[in-house]
């Protein structure tokens, strides 16, 4: 039905021509779901743009053929493509909120598409739009018809986008990272819905994602892309269980999943013996009945509703929950950027929750409690180079200057695996993994006892995530730090943490040792979270010998 042969896409840039896609070929049969998997910069999105002929200015298909039901899409005129787009092939983009017009009611936006393609008349558009909303399982479709995008959650917006994409009964749907940025339970709901709708209508689909586990669960066939080429393609189960290409194996290995240890994420040749970390018996941090309430326009907002837990010296605790559960508010209070409404934070035997955040800056314990931020790009000042970013806490709190400062920054760079010559670079000149290392080096600069990690790997590719997680495990063992690892990804938490706290709606619903919570969850919400995580097929063949050798 869709046949791509030797497709190449080139972009003209100031530094000459860049080949984003270099000669890829694949076929898509009716009713088939193909997953295109790759890390950032692999050319997977560009491939889909090329199919739809919506490449950015400067990009063009430099070679190859795209045949759609016998028609040559590469040679098709722009007006012919307009008929294909939306009516025969539709596309779902990454950020659903950005894909919707913020100032038009969602119902009207569906009507627009229906009428543009002659699928509805003025008279019946309203009814058809409501039917489309009902098809994507939106409750109270008649009411939701009048909603604006900002009034809906991310998952709802993505459903609307799907409704728009399906409005004209296309034969092929291309979904570009359809669930990035959505919560894990929402992700499952959206993906299940998409799969069901596609099956019902006998459509084909292409799912583009960085998440190998997700692709393996929802796609019939996978194509793994790297540097603009397909390195391996095949049925999902085979590809995951028995990867042939070294890059595919690396990706499969790096995908966190139940039943593997943190070192298993790395390529076999990079696996060093796991350094054990000691969990002491003394409590380093005690949180007692912590509450944060914000004044809101329609009454107070209870972000954190009285949570209590204890973290022992050297322990790594995972704080898990979906967006809006209060985990970020909690970590901001613990790191003393935010003042709690009530409750106590006892750190190392002293109450620090009562010290106002602005005064805690000059507290001798400021350096003891540090944090690694979620988005490495956002957390580095664009005007400071790596050296200055790492040196900032040393200058301000450590009082280091001159040669001593240089020596310490270099030591930290070495500790976090950042090459010396990168220290003069600005954030925009560093890769995602390198920026994460700078952020970690800055956080551990003052030898903190307690480190809060706020989704430190959420924005990273899986192979880099694997390296950063291992780096964190090594640092913990070497420096004896205590971690609070905030994350929405249970599979990652399982790898790194001894103890797990599950939060929902500002409250702790379950806490206990990782193995207990993960394998025998007692709260239904925890079970929900665990079941929503994509479960890739176990790569038995690849790992059985490795396990035996250990």
């Amino acid at each position, binding site marked *: 039905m869709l046949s791509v042969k030797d497709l190449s896409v080139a972009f003209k840039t100031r530094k000459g021509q860049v080949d984003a896609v270099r000669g890829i070929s694949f076929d898509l049969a009716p009713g088939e779901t193909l997953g295109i998997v790759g890390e950032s910069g692999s050319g997977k999105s560009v491939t889909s743009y090329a199919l739809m002929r919506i490449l950015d200015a400067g990009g063009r298909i430099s070679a190859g053929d795209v045949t759609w039901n016998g028609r040559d899409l590469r040679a098709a005129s722009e007006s012919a493509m307009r008929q294909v787009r939306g009516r025969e092939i539709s596309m779902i983009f990454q950020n659903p909120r950005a894909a919707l017009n913020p100032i038009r009611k969602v119902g009207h936006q569906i009507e627009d598409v229906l009428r543009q393609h002659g699928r509805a008349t003025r008279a019946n558009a309203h009814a058809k739009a409501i039917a489309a909303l009902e098809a994507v399982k939106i409750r109270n479709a008649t009411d939701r018809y009048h909603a604006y995008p900002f009034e809906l959650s991310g998952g709802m917006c993505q459903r609307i986008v799907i409704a728009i994409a399906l409005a004209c009964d296309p034969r092929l749907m291309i979904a570009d990272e359809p669930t990035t940025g959505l919560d894990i339970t929402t992700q499952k709901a959206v993906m299940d819905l998409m799969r069901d709708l596609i099956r019902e209508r006998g459509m084909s689909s292409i799912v583009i994602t960085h998440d190998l586990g997700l692709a393996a669960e929802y796609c019939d066939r996978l194509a793994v892309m790297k540097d603009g080429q397909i390195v391996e393609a095949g049925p999902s189960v085979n590809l995951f269980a028995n990867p042939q290409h070294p890059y595919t194996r690396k990706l499969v290995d790096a995908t966190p999943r139940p039943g593997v240890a943190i070192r298993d994420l790395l390529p076999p040749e990079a696996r060093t013996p796991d350094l054990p970390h000691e969990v002491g018996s003394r409590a380093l941090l005690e949180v007692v009945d912590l509450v944060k309430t914000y004044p809101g326009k329609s009454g107070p907002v209870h972000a954190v509703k009285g949570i209590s837990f204890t973290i022992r010296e050297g322990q790594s605790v995972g704080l898990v929950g979906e967006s809006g559960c209060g985990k970020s508010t909690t970590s901001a209070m613990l790191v003393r950027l935010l003042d709690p409404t009530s409750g106590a934070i006892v750190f190392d035997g002293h109450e620090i929750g009562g010290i106002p*955040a602005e005064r805690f800056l000059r507290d001798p314990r400021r350096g003891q409690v540090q944090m690694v931020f979620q988005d490495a790009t*956002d957390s580095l000042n664009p005007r400071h180079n790596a050296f200055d970013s790492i040196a900032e806490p040393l200058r*301000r709190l450590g009082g280091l200057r001159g040669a001593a400062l*240089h020596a310490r920054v270099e030591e930290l760079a070495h500790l976090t695996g950042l090459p010396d010559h990168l*220290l003069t670079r*600005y954030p925009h*000149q560093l890769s995602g993994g390198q920026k994460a290392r700078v952020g970690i080096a800055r956080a551990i600069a003052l030898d903190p006892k307690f480190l809060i990690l706020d989704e430190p790997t959420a924005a990273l590719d899986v192979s880099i995530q694997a390296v950063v997680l291992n780096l964190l495990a090594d640092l913990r063992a070497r420096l004896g730090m205590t971690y609070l690892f905030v994350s929405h990804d249970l599979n990652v938490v399982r790898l790194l943490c001894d103890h797990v706290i599950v939060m929902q709606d500002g409250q702790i619903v379950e806490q206990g040792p990782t193995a207990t919570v993960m394998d025998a969850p007692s709260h239904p919400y925890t079970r929900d979270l665990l079941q929503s995580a994509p479960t890739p097929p176990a790569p038995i063949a690849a790992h059985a010998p490795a396990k035996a050798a250990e």
Partner: protein
Amino acid sequence: MSDISPTQSGNGMLAHLGHVMKENPVTALSFGLFALFVLQAFFGHWLVPYDPLATNSVRALEAPSADHWFGTDQLGRDVFSRVIVATRLDLTISVLAVAISFVIGSVLGAVAGYWGGWLDAVLNRILDTIMAFPLFVLAMGIVAALGNTVENIIYATAIINIPFYARVVRAEVNIRREAGFALAARLSGNGHLRTLAFHIFPNALPPMMVQVSLNMGWAILNAAGLSFVGLGVRPPTPEWGIMVAEGANYIISGHWWVALFPGLWLMLAVFTFNLMGDGLRDLVDPRRRT
């Protein structure tokens, strides 16, 4: 490892300037013109062939010639000398006015953008009030009320420009208030003021530079405009606005050069500053360094 010292800006800045100019020829042109204007402002008094104030009634209203490149005015003064000498006064007025509004606008905007709340609301309403007046009329009013001096022209021009800076800074600071790097700066022991001044505010500089260059041209026009209507600088001081005003009387009688040349210089100055905007932005934006 002295090469990773953070204070390596001296040589790096020059190299960066070269890079920016090479990348964009328009920027290079505008920087060249700007250098020319600065040269005129500093050395114009010594370079000009005639005393700009010396009258010579015998040679009044002469057309441009080899002797008098831009001709002479109704009192026989050399227009070329007057145009060149006027550069210093016009540039001084605009640079000082822009500097004052840059500093005050930055402080107000940064405070409003960072702390928000009632402070933000009050400041915004004050700025709205300023913006509600026709700005040139407001400037005229200020000069008329404060007294007819060059300093007051500067203050008036500064006041009417403050809202533009304050708004740009407010928006830029506001979006970065909760950015990761601002929070990280606070974890490193920086208080709110330090975080704002040394971490957040510098990131607002690139759009500010565009504003500065646009405003410079505008400030020159404003100063010249005030002089044109008879406020501020008084004859016989050479100043582009006055010269255009005086020359305008002689256009009908065919003595076009008296008004044209100061007007041309005024236009060139405004043109230069407007073109410099992108170049200045690239200069202060670290992301442009490769």
